[in-house]
């Protein structure tokens, strides 16, 4: 458990969290490994976990019908994956597929939500980090929507 705690504490997303918060998070955490091609998340399925990527490369994809499966973002070591565990109805909005062998720390969403409700300091600390992550993704998505390299430029 100590090892898990240090891995979580050293992850960029979690930096600055106090010992108490880290101890609480460890109670919801487990080490998980995904082989290339495995899915960490499927669109429409319950978002039961929040992933801290330790190693590997995960593609976030959307099934665009006739256009096929479109990759819209990738995450890798140093990143985190998923905020659907925090927002009702707690379901994934995309697929997440391991492009290569990927090792993660999976934090159980229900467990995290309960602890956030019990201790709002923990909830606020996590919410601040998730909000920053959302802002970064929103900015990146807006840039993608601009189609910067399109022929109109």
């Amino acid at each position, binding site marked *: 458990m100590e090892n898990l705690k240090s891995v979580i504490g050293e992850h960029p997303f979690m930096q600055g969290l106090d010992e108490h918060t880290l101890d609480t998070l460890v109670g919801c955490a487990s080490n998980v490994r995904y082989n290339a091609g495995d899915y960490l998340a499927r669109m429409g399925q319950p978002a039961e976990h929040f992933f801290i990527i330790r190693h590997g490369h995960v*593609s976030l994809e959307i099934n665009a019908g006739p256009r096929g499966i479109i*990759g819209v973002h*990738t995450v*890798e070591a140093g990143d985190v994956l998923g905020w659907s565990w925090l927002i009702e109805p707690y379901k994934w909005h995309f697929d997440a597929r391991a492009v290569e062998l990927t090792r993660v720390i999976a934090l159980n969403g229900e467990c995290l939500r309960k602890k956030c409700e019990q201790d709002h300091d923990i909830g606020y600390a996590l919410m601040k980090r998730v909000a920053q992550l959302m802002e970064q993704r929103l900015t990146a998505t807006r840039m993608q929507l601009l*189609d910067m390299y399109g022929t109109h430029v």
Partner: protein
Amino acid sequence: MAAQTDPMLPRPFRIEKVTHETADTFTFELSQQQTNGNSGFDFACGQFNMLYTFGTGEIPVSISGDPARPQRLVHTIRAVGSVTRAMKKLKKGDTLGVRGPFGSAWPVQQAEGNDVVIIAGGIGLAPLRPAIYSILQNREKYGNVVLLYGARTPQDILFEKELREWRGRFDMQVLITVDHALGTWKGNIGVVPDLIKRVKIDPDNTIAMVCGPEIMMRFCVIGLHNRGMEHDTIFVSMERNMKCGIGLCGHCQYGPEFICKDGPVFPFSKIRTLFDIYEL
């Protein structure tokens, strides 16, 4: 320097080779037809020429070749307008008019002794390629060298063979991303400014060279600044409607600057206040 008496007079160049880089982007290798005893075309990394398609028009295009190989003048062009679409139809043996080289250069000498971060988006890799060649030819003079490159899709990646070579070197870090891709793509997906957080940057000893769409450069500058880099160590290449190429006609005026003469490469500190004025 190639002999040039009148900067407004195009010189005829023969197309020696055409390489189709992507569906809409191609590279010309040109040789000078009237050499006057000097067949080389000397230029500085980052400079551009005015290329004239006879009967259609003239456009500014950055030089994308190796400054150490001046025998061939190399331009990489994306077919997006009437002149570039006409150029795309040209073949080996056809003639183009060339005026130049014009403008300022990437700070490859100033960067000696420092780490170098090169950030390119889309066709923006073409104006940076001469700087990459130059830096790699004098690799021992630089610290860490990083190339971050973003393209629209995997099919739009320029100079793929060279990117593979550069990525295979032990003395250069190359990260590539695309805005979106089909499921078969195994590389990064996301915008190029997001790659900045993935590389080590020593802000006091790094020179950054950035070229791509203005919105991309804006976010790259923010990303580099957030990593501690000062604006006078971040260089960007600006693009406007260059016509004369020598700062006379005013078409490319950018506040008090002329992109063709004072740019296209600027330290960001010099144009920072202009960058936020929408009308410019």
